[in-house]
């Protein structure tokens, strides 16, 4: 058989030729930097201590301490109340943000950009960081957690709301304006009917997220079941942690299922 060579590959620009190498080098540099500077104390990770903890902690996690059930459920209930309060506050307070950020509602570039930036800024922080600040401001109580949840949710809901508003059918609005409707009438008859189902759906979706977020706020003293987590782990009461874990998994899953059902019917 004669010597065979495939035809040459099509000519590439220098940038196209170099691109995979540049990406490769950047990635390699990031990984080398990461793995050389991260300080993992392997001697502690693979120590006698770890083996002892593993054999103690894991079995206890899987044998929940049911005697604490009443206490755990009480605090889980408080967690749900916190999430509800925070989400509802945010669901309402996010509406003006949504309108200000929507280009088709407020025709003022400065206001649009300012609201979008404010919403983005909020979303840069995890709820737990917000909660930490609010605990410092108003003391360790559920109130701090609720405000953290509310503010965090405004960041996301405001953005989603503005996207919903920007996607509405403006012909309806135009038709109403042509009929001589005033601004408020246009809002009530032309805009609100178009946005209500999606607003509600997003608010309920955010409630799911807030339930998850609320479960851990107590770790820094902002109320809810997290309070119990801190106590139980400090006391190394792992079977109680096991029960808390189980309750969180079941409740969060149930809320997700119910909320998905409601949202499916809404939109």
């Amino acid at each position: 058989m004669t010597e065979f060579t495939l035809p040459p590959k099509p000519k590439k620009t220098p940038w196209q030729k170099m691109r995979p190498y540049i990406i490769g080098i950047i990635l390699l540099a990031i990984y080398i930097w990461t793995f050389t500077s991260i300080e993992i104390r392997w001697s502690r990770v693979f120590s006698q201590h770890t083996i002892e903890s593993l054999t103690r902690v894991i079995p206890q996690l899987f044998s929940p301490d049911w005697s604490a059930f009443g206490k755990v459920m009480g605090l889980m209930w408080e967690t749900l109340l916190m999430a509800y309060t925070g989400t509802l506050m945010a669901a309402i307070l996010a509406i003006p943000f949504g309108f200000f950020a929507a280009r088709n509602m407020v025709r003022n570039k400065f206001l649009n950009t300012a609201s979008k930036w404010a919403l983005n800024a909020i979303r840069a922080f995890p709820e737990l960081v917000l909660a930490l600040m609010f605990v410092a401001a108003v003391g360790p109580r559920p109130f701090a957690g609720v405000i953290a949840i509310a503010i965090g949710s405004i960041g996301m809901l405001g953005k989603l709301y503005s996207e919903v508003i920007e996607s509405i059918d403006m012909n309806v609005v135009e038709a109403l304006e042509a009929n001589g409707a005033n601004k408020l009438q246009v809002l009530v008859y032309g805009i609100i009917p178009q946005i209500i189902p999606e607003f509600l759906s997003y608010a309920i979706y955010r409630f799911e997220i807030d339930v998850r977020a609320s479960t851990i706020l107590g770790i820094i003293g902002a109320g809810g079941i997290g309070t119990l987590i801190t106590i139980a782990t400090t006391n190394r009461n792992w079977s109680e942690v096991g029960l808390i874990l189980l309750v969180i998994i079941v409740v969060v899953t149930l809320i997700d299922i119910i909320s998905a059902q409601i949202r499916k019917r809404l939109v």
Partner: protein
Amino acid sequence: MSKTNQPTLQGISSNKTKLRISAIFIIIVGFYLFTSIKTESSLLDLWNGKNGFINIAQSLFPPHWSYASTVMPQLIETLHMAIIATTVAALISIPISLLSAANLFPNPFIHQPVRFIMNVLRTIPDILLALIFVGIFGVGVFPGIMALIIFSLGLLAKLLYETIESIDMNPIEAIRASGGNTLQVITYAVMPQVLPQFVSFGLYVFEVNVRASLVLGFVGAGGIGLLLNQQVSWANYPNVMTIIIIIFISVVIIDYISNKIRERLI
């Protein structure tokens, strides 16, 4: 509909709809009043507590800039934790998401249990995982990384298997028909179709992990959270503000870069 010549109109919507909407409205508002009193978070509490917020806000300024040199190494450690966790989770999520895809493994005894485990993992808050791992492995970045890996694994596996289930099955049939085995089907027909999304989801999960790793230090699992918690409890607010600004800038930059890359991928 009334059958008389003169229909009895009930306004724009039927009485039934009106009743239902009013009932739902009353329940939502009523429950809110109940929960806001129960959690001591009513608008009245907000008004009464306003001084607390104002005082904190005032004491945050001016930020203590020279503290930034202490914060930066911790920030970098936080990023490293997120990088390692995302990489490991991405590698593990490949086989797991393939096993969870009903179009590749139609046998429900394979994909259902895998999905169930991933669903459970996603419901456990990462900081709670971190607390447990700190209990096992002691204080440090390792438990933090472990917590991030497990949480992001659940998230990534779900995003990925949904992508795999939506791929074009025709090439798979072609590769099977030409005698390819399962691994060859995956490398030749599945991977090329899902790779861009896979990278995109990896970047998204990295964004999530960066945010999550910021707070792991609250429970001793490494990163910048340790400093934040410490400075807040010492009421050293100018330092706190420095940390907040640094967190803000780095999160915004990372999100921006990640979004730009993801836009170009798909």
